[in-house]
């Protein structure tokens, strides 16, 4: 087992404007939905303590502005991210199409150590709405093509799948975190006398 130095998981939520990034974050952390959110300017974050694999970790979830023009701001916020959540609106195909550029942009700006295996999670939000325009199939195919990114269909309004999605996000972020520390040359010391089964990283098969 690796040393448990850092247990702060930094999660960045990206996606086009008004796909529901702020709503998802608030639904997850505060279990609340409001239709009064304004367009996010700058960046904000919320923290939540979660238990992943019997470990208590703190998730620091960063909500960012959706307009691509503001991406240049990102560098300061993307730094040190452990997981990136890409959100699109299932009723707006263009928001789905832009996932590609969000993903690329993130990889460029955050420049993670291992871009190939950096954990992303894709959320197709607003499934409570009638006028759906991006099929699950299409979204899943995209995710598969990008190194099997876990995909969830959520509704921040109804709270559908939000917890499940963020649990996966936390798990993958933690795995990333641990991997980082191992590749960082930390020696493994047994600290905890209690046996603790390390779960291997496994993307959700949704």
């Amino acid at each position, binding site marked *: 087992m690796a040393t448990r130095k850092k247990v702060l998981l930094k999660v960045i939520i990206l996606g086009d404007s008004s796909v529901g990034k702020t709503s998802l974050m608030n639904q997850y952390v505060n279990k609340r939905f409001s239709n009064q959110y304004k*367009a996010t300017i700058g960046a904000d974050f919320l923290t939540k303590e979660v238990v992943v694999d019997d470990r208590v970790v703190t998730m620091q979830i960063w909500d960012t502005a959706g307009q691509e023009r503001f991406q*240049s701001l990102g560098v300061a916020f993307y730094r040190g991210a452990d997981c990136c959540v890409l959100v699109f609106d299932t009723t707006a195909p263009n928001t789905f199409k832009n996932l590609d550029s969000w993903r690329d942009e993130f990889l460029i700006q955050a420049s993670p150590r291992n871009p190939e295996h950096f954990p992303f999670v894709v959320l197709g939000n607003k499934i409570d709405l009638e006028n*759906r325009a991006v099929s699950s199939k299409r979204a899943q195919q995209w995710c598969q093509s990008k190194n099997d990114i876990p995909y969830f269909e959520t509704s921040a309004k109804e709270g559908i799948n939000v917890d499940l999605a963020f649990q996966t996000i936390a798990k993958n972020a933690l795995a990333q975190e641990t991997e980082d520390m191992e590749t960082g040359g930390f020696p493994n010391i047994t600290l905890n006398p209690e046996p603790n089964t390390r779960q291997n990283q496994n993307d959700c098969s949704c």
Partner: protein
Amino acid sequence: MLGQSASDSEFKERLIANVKKEVKQIMEESVTKKFVHEDSSTVVSLCGAVEACLSQGLRRRALGLFKTSSTTALLHKISSNCIEAAYVSKKVQDIEAADPSKRSSSSSDSIIKPPILTKKSSSNSVSGTSTTSPNPNVGGQVFKYMWIRIALYEKKLARIIDHLVSNANRYYDKDSLVADPDYGSILSSLLVGPCALDYSRAKTQDYFWSDPSANELVQRHIIPSQTTPQASRRPMLNIKRMHTSSDDSGISTYKNNSPASTAKDYVESLHQNSRATLLYGKNNVLVHPKDVAEPMPGYLSLHQSIQYLIIKWTPNQLMNGYNDQSLPSSAGSTDNVDKSFYWAYVLNINVDDIVYVHCHQNRSSEETSGTIILVGHDGVQRPPIHFPEGGHMASFLSCLETGLLPHGQLDPPLWSQKGIGRIFPWPVKSRRRVGGLPSVLENNDEMPIDYVFRVVNKSNPEEFLATHPIMDVGRTSPYRPHLSSCSTNESSDCSSKSISLDLAENPIVTQVNQTTSIALVCTTMKRQIISRAFYGWLAYCRHLSTVRTHLSGLVNGRITPDIGAESGLTEERWKDLHDENGVVNLESEVYRLVYFGGVAQEIRKEVWPYLLGHYTFGQTPEERADLDENTRHYYETTMSEWLAVEAIVRQLDKEKTAHAVAKLSSGGSASDSKVKNGVDIDVQLENEVFEENGFSDLSDPEVEDDEKDSTKIPKVDSLPVDFDLEVKNEPKTINLEPSQPGGESMKSSPSTSSYETVGTDFVDCPMSPKLNPTAVIVTDASIDVVNMMAMEINEEKNNDKTNLETLHEEKMPSAQNSLDALQEPKSACVSPASSNGGIYSSELLDQFGLNLHRIEKDVQRCDRNYWYFANENLDKLRNVITTYVYEHLEIGYMQGMCDILAPLLVIFDDESISYGCFCRLMERMIENFPNGCAMDMHFANMRSLIQILDSEMYDLMHAHGDYTHFYFCYRWFLLDFKRELLYTDVFAVWECIWAAKHVSSSHFVLFLALALLENYRDIILSNSMDFTDIIKFFNEMAERHNVPQVLKTARNLALQLQTLIENK
């Protein structure tokens, strides 16, 4: 007997379970908080549980002379056989020796207060132990179990217990827990984990990761500040740059008292901390140690502590490598085979020991690299330090010079050049050249430039003062007004010296004539005083000159008095300011009143256009009415323009949505079939980029896209945001055909000309509707809604200019009506008369469509909880924004524009005047958006201002490197604090910003931002908030600020800077 042993084992089981529980707790804490605080309650409870195990069944007799069954006694007893125990025992005795008051109690029991404990911990510990401690002791719980704690901190507890267990028969009863073959070994192995943890006293924040809310922080702050209001607060304006005295500092909580200096600690000590200010830091600076073949890269830093200025250089191997060391080892020790030899190369040079600084600079271009060799008093040269290119050497020297001030300096001083900063003295030839380094001179292509600086150090000022009573006279004399704001020792020294100069001359000079011996003494003293005073004064001046250069542009030179302006611009006063013709002339008085007291809500509607520059002072009511008219006219014309475009965009959208939905319903099977067949044109078109990656047999859609664009002239395909390609090949979609062959001759000229005729009054509104010269005709046959407005538009387009003028004339009386018509939601919106068609480039349609969707999204979300926007007023917002964006398509819509417009609309409740004022406002605001450069400038100015006005805060921000970008101010500046404040406060703050431009500073937002920081500075400092903490804090505090207070502080800050700069 059997029952007895059963209950015994039950008891032991409980004891062990207790230890288990505590171990688990402490491991958890180490995980959640990254470290375990030494005073943490979990530590106390763990020690309690261990103590309980160890006390159980302890043989009194075994302890011999010791009277009690204290486990401390046991420890001392075994120390002769067990190294670890001896070590811990020694430590315990040391602590007792250091604090003799504890001695008496220590030998009898383990109730000892280690002197290291802080008061803060007591509350934690008590709450933690009360439940878990098996044998609670009266009142002394906090200070208990000292040896166990020390053994734990020193990571030796497990081994000591191991020793006890293996020698249990000597000290314990047979049936005791420790002697038990099972429990004994369990106990010792349980403690292996906690013994591997790091215990820290360095960080006192127990709530490190638990993120107290902003509210809680404010509450916490209020409680103590009620008893001692701002007791520890230093005066805000600190002229002295470096904060050198650490004892009174709010950030001294960082203080690490731990004597053990580990490698990690060493590297961390290179950061800014309370004891030493980091003046300079640069990585990958090459140093060439004597016995090494190649120069080594490392981190060069310059630290200023109270007494010393120290240059440090640490090899990269040590900087990066400390993580690799599994357990912290002593800095100088050789525990770690790989890294340890690098410690030999570490440089740690006290600048006091240095007499010469040799600089060798290669000046081939502007970019310069250089080498510095430091020569000590003993004549020994330190290893050469090679700076990479990019002026790093110059900046190092500059920092060195700053660090030496005011008691030392470089001789000759670096030249200070306005705007650029310090540069090397010039010309070179007059400076001393260094011989003995021919290698540098060999590069004849690049002219090498050598300098020698002498480091001039003066004696400690305190000693000097002590022996020179005259200085005290100077000290007690009143400072000059602007100097009274200096607060650190150094700067006040400077000021006192500059005054003692005068004092020295007057009374003493007269004495000189009377007695020669006294005269001699006095002359000597005078000379000393004068020279010291001069240097102090010089340093002060130089610093002020830096301040001025950097910040003089931020404030207006003239200070405006606030007499009688507190009540602001009331309705009555506003009325008085009009002359008999209704003209307002007293421009400066209006600004002054607004700046110091705001505008009364009732007259905001009238005053704001003046403040924003929409109206100019001195205009007659008629002129203003004309202006309003023209504005309205222009606004309506532009609006009808884009409404026409919008109609087309919408129609295209509708078609596409229908199409997409149709596709989606059959989507499943379609994409299935595509998977099978691989060629299905429809799907291929629709799915576009999305499935590209999954299906390599598809051709690159981007290329495809381009091909189509070039072949098909009426390119409508990419215009709506949501749907891209599929339209064009569908027979069902809009018919795109050039219906008016003659129409192209007009091209886009009619629309531009209409701007010109109406727009003459809009000097500052750029008129650049980006119309593509290769415009194509788009006719939408499917739209059959014909509307009056639309007819007008088309007429405007198709008729010549004169006709247009008359049309406008006709329209004016009914302007209000048509305006109302425009305010109707888009369902009632006009569409261009389809048969006539409009002339729009595909690019225009494309861009406008994209922006329309963006605007829509944001308008819907803009302040809908505010009463004004709870209804159709949102449409007004949308109209004005769209008009503005249509006029500035090259910039396009950016998030935040809605927020800037909304308050204007609330005040004016009129689209055209809001539009006019919005244009004015955006002239300044647009620069803050990502395409402008004002934001970075704001950040840089904030930095300088904080450095000048609040050095303590600056130190904190410097310590957390992340502050450098000040992103927590981003939203403040982007929206002029609109999101931070309630609507009523936004009004007050905005008019103050607008008026400030003419009263104190055209960068008043900076002072507002500073004021916000200042308002919470004590909270920020006492919690030593980092970048993320502060973002969260201010996001949570949004709309909860005490705005009158903030405004007052901001005005004072601006005044302070004005005063500072004015006084030269």
